[in-house]
C-alpha cells in the first residue's frame, strides 16, 4: 500500500512497539505530527525544550530495556537536542532520534532552519542517516533501531527532509535486517573463557570491577553468581551501581574519584582483575602510570573492542556480549574440579576488611543545626525502602546519591556519568516515570542543575508525573566550589549563586506542591509526607550545609591510593 513518508514513520514506530515518543513540533516535522495526531498507539509527550525530549527518552531507555525515541524539528530543534544526544552517546544508551530537515531541494541553500544535522551529530551518535527518498524510510528506521539496541548500544539519528515526509511510497516494514559492515559480537571464544577461568581460580587476590555494561547488557544475575562463586570482592563504577547489590557483603562500594577507600585499594593491589562492561575511565583509575606500577593480570570482557586496551594494558581481552560470556564462564567454573584457594581468599579478605575499617565506609558527621546532604539521601533510602528509581543531575548531590543510596537492583540509578550533563535529572525522571507507572521515582538535584531544565515542571503537570524532586540546595555550584577550595586557593570564582528563586512558589506556580526544609529534624517527616502524596509532584527544597565536601576524593591525575579521606582534612 502507498503511504506518505510521515505515515510510514509512524507505522515504523508502531512496528517497533514504541509506547512513548518525546518531542517538540516545528515546520519540518509538521507532516509527522499530523500523522501522530491521527493515531493513538504511539503516545507523544510534549516537552518544553528539545534537550529534555532526548533526556526523557534516555531515562525511558535506561530504566527499561527499550529503545528511547525523540522527535525534533530541523535547525534549532536539532541543535537543542545535541546535548541530550551526546549524553546518551557517552553512556551507551539505545535511542532513535528523528529530526526534520528542510526539503531536499533546499538543502545546502542556507534555507530557513537548516543545519547539517548529520554533520553536527556525527561525533556523538553511533550512526546517523539522511533519508532522501520515502521508499528508504522503513528500511532506514529498521536499521536505526537495530543499530541502537545491538552491540554497544547508542543513539542513532534519522534526519528526514520535509518533502520526503510528504511523498508517497510503498510501505512494508522489513522483517529482518542485516548490515554487511556491522556484526555485533555474541558469544565469547571458548578457549579464552577457559583461560579466564584458570586465571581466576589461581588468583590469590582476585577483584571484580563491573561497569555500566552489566546494567545495559542485563547481566546482573550472572555477575552476582560469578562473584559468589569466586568469593572475590566486587566494585561497581558509577554507571554500574545496582548491577551488583550494594547490601551484599562482597560489595566494596563504588570505586574511582569518589569511590570507597577499600574499592580503590583493592583495585590497586589485586593480582587478577576481572573487568566486565567497564571502560577504565579517567575518573575511575585516576593516573594511568600510577595504576600500572603494580603488576596485576587483567581480564577484560567488553562488547566493544575499542573499550579494551584503550587506557591500560590488558592480558586477556575478551570481546563478547557480557551476559553470554559470563554464562560461559560460569559453566566452566562450575564444572571445574579446582576451587578458589580458600586460605588465600581469607587473607585477601582480611586485608580488604582492614581497608574497610581504615576508610570507615561512607561516613560524615551529622548535625542537629544544619542539614547534611548525606543525611537527606540516607533518609530517602530509608523511606523508599531502597527500592525507588533515582535520577540525578551533576555535582556533589550526584556523588552523595551514588554513595548513600544503596542500590540493590540494576536500572534504578539513572545519571549522566560520561558527559556529566547538568539538567539531565528532571527530564530523565519523566521518561522513567512514564515507562514505570506506579513506581516511586525521585530526582536528586542541586539548585544549580535543576534550573537547567526546570521548565519541565510544566511537562510533569501536563502528563501527571508524580516525581519527587529533592533539591540539595547549598546555594553553590558545590562541585565547582569544592575544587576551588581544594585546588584554587579558596577563590570561589562564580560558584556562588545569588538570587535563587523561591522554589516553593515556583513549584506552586507550575501547579505542584513545594516544600522548604531548613532543619535536620524536619528532613524525615518532610520526605515521609512527600512520598505519601502518591499523585503529586513534590518539590523539596532542602537548605543544606553549603560547605560540605564529597569524600573520599582521589584528586584528578592522582593514583587510586593517593586518596583524600574525610579525616585527612
Amino acid at each position, binding site marked *: 500500500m502507498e503511504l506518505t513518508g510521515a505515515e510510514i514513520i509512524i507505522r515504523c514506530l508502531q512496528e517497533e512497539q514504541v509506547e512513548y515518543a518525546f518531542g517538540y513540533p516545528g515546520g519540518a516535522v509538521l507532516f509527522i505530527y499530523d500523522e501522530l495526531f491521527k493515531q493513538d498507539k504511539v503516545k507523544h509527550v510534549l516537552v518544553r525544550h528539545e534537550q529534555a525530549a532526548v533526556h526523557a527518552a534516555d531515562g525511558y531507555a535506561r530504566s527499561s530495556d527499550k529503545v528511547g525515541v525523540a522527535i525534533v524539528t530541523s535547525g534549532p530543534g536539532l541543535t537543542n537536542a545535541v546535548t541530550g544526544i551526546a549524553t546518551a552517546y557517552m553512556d551507551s544508551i539505545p535511542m532513535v532520534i528523528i529530526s526534520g530537515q528542510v526539503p531536499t531541494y533546499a538543502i545546502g541553500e542556507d534555507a530557513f532552519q537548516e543545519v547539517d544535522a*548529520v*554533520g553536527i551529530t*556525527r*561525533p556523538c551518535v*553511533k*550512526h546517523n542517516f*539522511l533519508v532522501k527518498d520515502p521508499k528508504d524510510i522503513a528500511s532506514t528506521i529498521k536499521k536505526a533501531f537495530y*543499530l541502537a539496541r545491538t552491540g554497544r548500544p547508542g543513539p542513532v539519528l534519522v534526519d528526514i527532509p520535509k518533502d520526503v515526509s510528504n511523498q508517497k511510497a510503498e510501505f512494508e516494514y522489513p522483517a529482518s535486517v542485516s*548490515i*554487511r*559492515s*556491522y556484526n555485533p559480537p555474541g558469544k565469547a571464544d571458548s578457549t579464552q573463557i577457559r583461560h579466564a577461568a584458570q586465571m581466576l581460580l589461581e588468583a590469590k587476590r582476585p577483584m571484580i570491577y563491573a561497569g555500566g555494561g552489566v546494567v545495559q547488557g542485563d547481566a546482573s544475575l550472572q555477575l552476582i553468581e560469578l562473584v559468589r562463586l569466586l568469593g572475590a570482592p566486587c566494585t561497581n563504577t558509577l554507571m554500574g551501581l545496582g548491577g551488583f547489590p550494594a547490601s551484599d557483603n562482597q560489595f566494596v562500594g563504588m570505586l574511582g574519584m569518589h569511590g570507597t577507600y577499600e574499592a580503590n585499594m583493592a583495585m590497586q593491589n589485586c593480582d587478577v582483575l576481572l573487568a566486565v562492561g567497564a571502560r577504565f575511565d579517567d575518573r575511575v583509575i585516576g593516573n594511568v602510570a600510577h595504576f600500572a606500577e603494580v603488576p596485576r593480570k587483567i581480564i577484560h570482557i567488553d562488547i*566493544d*573492542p*575499542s573499550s579494551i*586496551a*584503550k587506557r591500560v594494558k590488558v592480558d586477556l581481552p575478551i570481546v563478547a556480549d557480557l551476559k553470554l560470556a559470563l554464562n560461559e564462564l560460569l559453566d566452566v567454573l562450575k564444572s571445574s574440579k579446582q576451587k578458589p584457594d580458600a586460605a588465600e581468599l581469607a587473607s585477601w579478605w582480611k586485608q580488604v576488611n582492614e581497608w574497610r575499617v581504615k576508610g570507615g565506609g561512607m561516613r560524615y558527621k551529622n548535625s542537629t543545626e544544619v542539614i547534611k546532604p548525606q543525611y537527606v539521601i540516607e533518609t530517602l533510602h530509608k523511606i523508599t525502602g531502597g527500592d525507588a528509581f533515582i535520577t540525578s543531575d551533576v555535582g556533589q548531590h550526584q556523588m552523595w546519591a551514588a554513595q548513600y543510596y544503596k542500590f540493590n537492583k540494576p536500572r534504578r540509578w539513572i545519571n549522566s556519568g560520561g558527559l556529566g550533563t547538568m539538567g539531565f535529572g528532571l527530564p530523565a525522571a519523566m521518561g522513567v516515570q512514564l515507562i514505570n507507572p506506579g513506581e516511586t521515582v525521585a530526582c536528586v538535584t542541586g539548585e544549580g542543575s535543576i534550573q537547567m531544565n526546570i521548565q519541565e515542571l510544566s511537562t510533569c503537570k501536563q502528563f501527571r508525573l508524580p516525581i519527587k524532586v529533592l533539591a540539595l540546595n547549598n546555594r553553590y555550584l558545590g562541585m565547582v566550589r569544592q575544587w576551588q577550595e581544594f585546588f584554587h586557593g579558596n577563590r570561589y570564582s562564580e560558584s556562588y549563586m545569588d538570587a535563587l528563586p523561591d522554589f516553593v512558589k515556583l513549584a506552586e506556580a507550575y501547579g505542584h506542591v513545594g516544600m522548604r526544609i531548613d532543619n535536620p529534624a524536619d528532613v524525615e517527616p518532610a520526605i515521609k509526607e512527600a512520598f505519601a502524596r502518591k499523585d503529586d509532584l513534590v518539590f523539596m527544597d532542602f537548605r543544606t550545609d553549603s560547605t560540605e565536601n564529597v569524600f573520599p576524593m582521589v584528586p584528578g591525575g592522582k593514583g587510586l591510593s593517593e586518596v583524600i579521606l574525610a579525616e585527612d582534612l
Partner: protein
Amino acid sequence: MRHIISLLMENEAGALSRVAGLFSARGYNIESLTVAPTEDPTMSRMTIVTRGSDAVIEQINKQLNKLVDVVAVMDLSEGEHLERELMLVKIRAKGEDRDELKRMADIFRGRVIDVSSDTYTIELTGAGSKLDNFLEAIGRELILETVRTGASGIGRGDRILKL
C-alpha cells in the same frame, strides 16, 4: 611508527567525513588519505597513512572497524605489502635544461605528459620516498607545481582485503 591502513567502506555520502572526523576528533595523525570506488560500485577503498605508538595504532584500527560504514580494515604494514603514489610535477624547463630534465625523468622512470615552450609536466609513480628523491634531484627552484595522490597500498600475494 608509520602505518599504512587500508579499508573498504560503503560508497555512501558522508562515509569519508566519518573517517576524517574520527581522526581529527581523536587527535590521530593523517599523513595522507586516498579514496575511490572499487570494481564493486557500492564500495570504496581507502588508504590512510598515519603515525602513532602501537597503542594508538591499535585504537585507530578498532575505531575504524567500529564505524558502521566501514566494511573491512587491514593494517598493511603488519605484513608484506606494496605501496605506490602518483605524482604530477610541473617544472620550469628552458634551453639546455630541457635535455637534462628529460634524462632525470627517465632515470626515475617518469613520463613527460605535457610540454610547453618553457615547462614540462612529469608523471611519476612509486613509493613516497622515490617521489621525494626525484623532487630533491630536480631542485626547488625549478619546481612550479606538485600534485601528489598520497599512498595507495595493497597486500602482497595472498593478502587480500575483500568482503
